[in-house]
């Protein structure tokens, strides 16, 4: 990841770290529960949560696994997540590492579980990150990626890309389900299941977690209100007196695994097969 963009990410998420830790729309949700249902965490699992943000995924999984390593590119975010988890008291199996998802600082095969939630749309090189995920996963390891789904209608997709960038300039690109399938396949991970989950965002909280000032929030509000009807229908935009109250987007949950080690069963070469003896004894 080039350092200029990395600094932009740090600036963006550093200033809004508290909002991310406190955000109710991140701390719970159907996506976390579905990820747990598919991943079937156990106390033998060593888990990595990449781009942990406010630490909500790490905190949610911590009672179900042996250990969670939570990594993020932004130190302020990690510190706030660390403070938040310390306040919870009971949690003593989460550790934090400042790391780049595209250059992970872990030996090959370190983790049996890997999660990455609502983050890949900020990665400049998702295939590279996926290769790293594959590398640090143990054979047979399980992985869940959750990210915002790119709408398939080009006009709705354009609106989506523009409004995400207006809200947070470090948004690079969300992907369609087909694009994800191809990237997962190319990284030699095995796609097991995908799931689309609707997520409703409180508009005010959503602009607040991005640290938008009033003028920028109003600009975004206008962009939503002026959008064509099909955009309103797709995102189920709810408004009152010209003010957007909420909208609903779709998250894609990708459940994939790393291939199990192939079992080599020793077979005697055919030439060693016993021949019928013709000799008389």
């Amino acid at each position, binding site marked *: 990841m080039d*350092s200029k963009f*990395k600094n932009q990410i740090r600036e963006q998420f550093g200033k809004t770290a508290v909002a991310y830790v406190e955000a109710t729309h991140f701390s719970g949700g159907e996506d976390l529960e579905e990820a747990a249902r598919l991943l079937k965490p156990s106390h033998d699992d*060593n888990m990595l949560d990449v781009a942990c943000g406010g630490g909500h995924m790490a905190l949610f999984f911590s009672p179900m696994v042996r250990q969670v*390593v939570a990594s993020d*590119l932004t*130190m302020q975010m*990690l*510190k706030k997540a*660390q403070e938040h988890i*310390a306040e919870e008291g009971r949690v003593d199996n989460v*550790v*934090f*590492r*400042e*790391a*780049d998802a595209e*250059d*992970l*600082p*872990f*030996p*090959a095969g*370190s*983790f049996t579980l890997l999660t990455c939630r609502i983050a890949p749309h900020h990665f400049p090189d998702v295939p590279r990150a996926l290769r790293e995920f594959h*590398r640090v996963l143990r054979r047979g390891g399980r992985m869940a990626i959750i990210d915002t789904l790119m709408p398939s209608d080009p006009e709705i997709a354009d609106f989506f890309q523009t409004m995400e960038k207006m809200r947070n300039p470090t948004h690079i690109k969300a992907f369609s389900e087909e694009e994800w399938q191809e990237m997962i396949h190319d990284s030699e991970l095995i796609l097991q299941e995908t799931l689309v989950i609707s997520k409703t965002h409180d508009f005010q909280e959503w602009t607040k977690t991005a640290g938008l000032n009033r003028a920028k929030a109003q600009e975004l509000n206008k962009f939503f209100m002026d959008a064509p009807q099909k955009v309103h229908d797709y995102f189920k935009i709810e408004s009152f007196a010209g003010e957007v109250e909420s909208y609903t987007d779709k998250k894609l949950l990708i459940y994939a695994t790393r291939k199990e080690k192939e079992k080599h069963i020793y077979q005697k070469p055919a030439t060693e097969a016993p021949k019928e003896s013709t000799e008389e004894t």
Partner: protein
Amino acid sequence: MSLKPELLDILACPKCKQSVELDEDRKSIHCSNCYLRFPVRDGIPVMLIDEAECSRVAEGN
């Protein structure tokens, strides 16, 4: 939160992916392969290639 030495087992150099070692003062972690030194801030290792200090002394100095 202190940095437990046993957690270094699941830490590697982000550049060469080889094992890293904790410095005696526990304030940094180094990779003896890449000559990179990674700071530890508030108990959190900063494992970023461009934040690391290169500790290699150029030949002839």
